[in-house]
């Protein structure tokens, strides 16, 4: 295990953890409910760690990415349904990320939103064409580390650390009205969805194969998933906690993604603002690339095409054409003028509905000794895996009613 490679892998995971959905929901959750939803971020992060580790392990041992296995385990009909649902979910998410990047560039430079959407899509296509896989991951992931300014900003505003610590304990705030309880429930479901987005697992497992992982990389896989996701989650929690401290008391319920940058501007001034916007830009840009590539991986793997960015683009032509078309489709959604916040809401809603179908085959396969040999799920992974499957299934069932009853969390 190369320590430099491992460190870079972990830092990439940290910088790449936050996307537009986590940004939006962390800021809103803090302003609406104070520190009471921190435990949901922690719970969901443990879930994504468990499933990411499993998907990395399956990729390293069975040498198969999630979607190959998905079709084999679910069969053609259910597999196609899962593929269709995940394409829609990832496409909306990708559109939300492209919209988010365009907004952030508008905040930074004042350049027109539409022009930035078209320009950034061209940048994404070019960067994926030109750069090998490892550099695609690292460029966006490492530049996303500007997000650390949010953690620094939280420390700088001297928050009530005991209350933040208390937020890690599972709770429902006392004294909520029925409507507020439903909204709290909606935010719980939305945060679980935003943190455990299916594209993360598809991208992580395919990335493991792109990087040629084998059984010797078990420790790398474990450390990258655990440390990378846990530290990344702390950035999201910093956004929530700062929002609770700065926005909640002045009745701000962040209506636009750009308001989150105020959390760094308030303690650090203009430089804090610029660093926060840069962090948001690269984190969300990285997520746009990941969601698009995750979709292209899923489609290519489902139909048995040659895939992967470890090959030159013309060596995997159907895969290449697929991710280019997907970027153009996501851009088309953005150019319809639909509000980015609405895209985020729908991305989160569609994703939670797809999650049980995504994680079930992975859970079954990671425990199958025929493929996994001595690397199959142990008792802890089995128990936690099935527990989380029950949690995400419950969340998936509750998602649509809660969305309707709370007007998408707006009460």
């Amino acid at each position, binding site marked *: 295990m190369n320590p430099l490679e491992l460190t870079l892998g972990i830092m990439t995971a940290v910088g790449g953890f936050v996307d537009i959905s986590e940004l939006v929901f962390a800021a809103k959750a803090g302003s609406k409910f104070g520190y009471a939803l921190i435990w949901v971020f922690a719970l969901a992060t443990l879930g994504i760690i468990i499933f990411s580790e499993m998907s990395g392990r399956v990729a390293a041992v069975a040498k198969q990415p999630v979607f190959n296995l998905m079709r084999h385990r679910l069969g053609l009909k259910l597999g196609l349904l899962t593929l269709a649902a995940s394409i829609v979910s990832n496409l909306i998410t990708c559109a939300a990320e492209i919209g988010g990047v365009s907004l952030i560039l*508008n905040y930074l430079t004042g350049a027109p939103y539409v022009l930035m959407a078209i320009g950034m899509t061209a940048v994404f296509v070019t960067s994926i064409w030109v750069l090998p896989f490892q550099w695609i991951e690292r460029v966006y992931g490492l530049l996303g580390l500007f997000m650390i300014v949010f953690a620094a900003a939280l420390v700088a505003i001297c928050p009530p650390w005991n209350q933040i610590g208390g937020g890690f304990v599972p709770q429902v705030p006392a004294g909520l009205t029925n409507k507020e309880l439903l909204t709290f429930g909606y935010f719980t479901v939305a945060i679980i969805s935003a943190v455990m987005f299916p594209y993360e697992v598809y991208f992580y497992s395919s990335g493991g194969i792109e990087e040629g992982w084998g059984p010797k990389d078990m420790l790398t896989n474990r450390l990258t998933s655990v440390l990378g996701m846990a530290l990344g989650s702390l950035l999201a929690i910093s956004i929530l906690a700062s929002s609770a401290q700065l926005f909640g008391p002045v009745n701000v*319920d962040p209506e*636009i993604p750009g308001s989150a940058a105020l959390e760094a501007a308030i303690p650090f001034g203009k430089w804090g603002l610029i660093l926060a916007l840069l962090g948001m830009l690269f984190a969300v840009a990285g997520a746009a690339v990941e969601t698009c590539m995750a979709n292209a991986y899923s489609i290519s793997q489902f139909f048995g095409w040659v895939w992967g960015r470890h090959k030159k683009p013309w060596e995997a032509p159907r895969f290449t054409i697929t991710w280019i078309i997907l970027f153009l489709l996501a851009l088309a959604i953005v150019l319809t003028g639909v509000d980015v916040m609405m895209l985020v809401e729908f991305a989160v809603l569609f994703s939670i509905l797809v999650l049980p179908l995504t994680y079930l085959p992975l859970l079954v396969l990671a425990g199958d000794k025929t493929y996994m040999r001595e690397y199959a799920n142990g008792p802890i992974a089995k128990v936690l895996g099935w527990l989380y499957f029950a949690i995400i299934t419950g969340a998936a069932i509750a998602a649509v009613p809660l969305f309707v009853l709370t007007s998408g969390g*707006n009460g």
Partner: protein
Amino acid sequence: MRIFLLSVLLLSACSKGPNADLQYIKQARSIAAEWALVNEQAELGKLTPTYVESLHRWLRDDLQTAISSLSEPNSPYGDQMKALLAEPPDTAAFALRARAESLKQIEDGLESA
């Protein structure tokens, strides 16, 4: 046919009025508060002019959308929201906070009703 018409009437009644507009009142209250925070921080020199201008534009766009979505735009809360939109972008933070506070009172009143 009678049952169908009754259902349509009931549904349309449910989708009108202050309760249906509550989410837009909340949105307007938050926009006023965010706007105030942006102007306050701009006054302290903590924000870039580009960021301030951009946020003003997006917040006012959202406010315009919220006003257009009201089922009763000529209600007292509708008038307050329109008055908020009519404020110049660089309105003093305290004035914007006063508008946010008055929308909050309407919001609290509707929620406790």
